[in-house]
């Protein structure tokens, strides 16, 4: 893989140009989120002391400042509040326009601003239901000792529930 204009970067991985988060335990203590995601589960952390369920998942409870957190499952089906379609400015890596965005109610847990995939232009409407959709993204070529090991990754969007 060559990098035009910067020949020394041929074949090199650049974290500063990566669309997706680091998901290995070496680079992210929230790595269980992605491991559960591979099982089709949408999770976050709950504080064992005060019961708060912050999202994104984290080490420190933002309500009572405890670090005694546990992983819990959240719903994987949400209801569309509003939908819009991005025709111009879709960043590289997110397909051809339109990029469908929706504001969804995750069964009272949070209002999420999510990407909707497997959805035709004009298909999605307020009140429709969408479900979690997990897909593979580029693995990270990570140094392990003297070797480069490809760490598989996934990410999520939602898709119409049919």
């Amino acid at each position, binding site marked *: 893989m060559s990098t035009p204009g910067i020949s020394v970067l041929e074949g090199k991985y650049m974290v500063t140009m990566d*669309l997706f988060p680091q998901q290995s335990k070496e680079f992210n203590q929230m790595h269980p989120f992605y491991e559960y995601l591979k099982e089709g589960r949408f999770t976050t952390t709950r504080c064992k002391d005060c019961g708060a369920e912050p999202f994104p998942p984290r080490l420190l409870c933002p309500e009572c400042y405890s670090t005694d957190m546990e992983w819990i499952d959240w719903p994987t089906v949400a209801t569309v509040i509003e939908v819009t379609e991005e025709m*111009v400015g879709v960043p590289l890596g997110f397909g051809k326009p339109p990029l469908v965005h929706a504001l969804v109610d995750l069964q009272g847990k949070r209002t999420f601003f999510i990407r909707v995939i497997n959805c035709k232009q004009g298909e999605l409407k307020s009140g429709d239901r969408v479900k979690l959709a997990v897909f593979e993204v580029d693995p990270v070529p990570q140094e392990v000792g003297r070797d480069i090991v490809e760490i598989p990754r996934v990410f999520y969007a939602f898709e119409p529930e049919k």
Partner: protein
Amino acid sequence: MTERNVCVIAGGMSKWGVREGSQRDFFQEAAKACYQDNPQLNPKEIDGLLVASAYTERTSYQTHLAPLVAEYVGIRPKNICARVELLCASGSSAIILAFGMIKSGQADVVMVAGGEKLYTPQKWEVFYSELASVDHDWDAAQGLGLPPPVFAMVAKQHMKQFGTKKEHLGQISVKNRRNAAKNPKAQFQTPVTMDEVMSGRMIVDPLTLYDCCPITDGAAAVVLAVEEKAKDITDKPLVYVRGTGQASVNNMSANMPDWTTWEALKIAAAQAYKKSKVEPKEVDVAMTHDCFTISELIEMEDLGFCEKGEGGPFVESGQNDIGGIVPTNTDGGLLGCGHPFGGTGIRQAIEVTRQLRGDAIQQVAGAKIGLTHNLSGFIAAHTVLVYGKEVA
């Protein structure tokens, strides 16, 4: 201990737009314009420098920017020399910090310079870099880079809840482009008609081309000074920073408390009004963050210039235009001037300073109190400053 009051004593900006040149070129142009605004200012007397830039590492591959700017604009700060970053509100954040430095006696004369080189040799990169502007691991990975989808969602909900019309948004675009056409430093030099605005190409429904501010290169600079020195350095009317506020209540979209009432803006505004001993009805001129037309409309409501949900009729009756209750974005705003992130809060300070000095291009007669407002990130932080012809 005598109260230390803080004044703006000079301000200037480079030409903004799709520019030939580098980040460091634009900072020199802005400094030159700032020095020319007040020939009595000896740049060697500037004892502090704060530089506002958000994308310097991404689009110019340059960190440690403040000493570089100091070197290029010929100043030798001895009390502070650092960069401030809060994306679209970097400039106004730096002004707040300069204000605090001077107020507390840590510095006497501070330059605040801000700007960006956003256009790169291949344009895809700036869109891609925008993915760093929100929570990268969660929101950006959903494809939320450039902000139009977020503001489109806000507009849709405001329309649904309050009956706001696309024409209300269009009126803001027409006003700000008309104002920009009179400002030689603005990116856009031509006005647009309501017909052109309403038939603009779709970006993200309901936002069309003229609802969105452009991508912009450029820089701006102001100099703040303690009142005692300011009196010696300028013969122009003094303009005081009266009070400031900055608030954040969430970062990731999932934690946004309300999409059509911006809680952090209300908090920041309440702080700024309280510290400056000003009420919304006393504001004579405002520069608000019109990154999108819907933003200016909601800002009219949440800054207290009209009731919640009344932004549409307020705009329709011209209350945010010259001759109205609070002439807004008299220099063209972001929609007309463009938006080099770190430069915007400083551009706003320059226009408010001119309005209060009485030498603005489109002067609001008798303006005594001016306000600036920035929002940044995923509508995640709000910054409000109140300026006046007199101290608070």
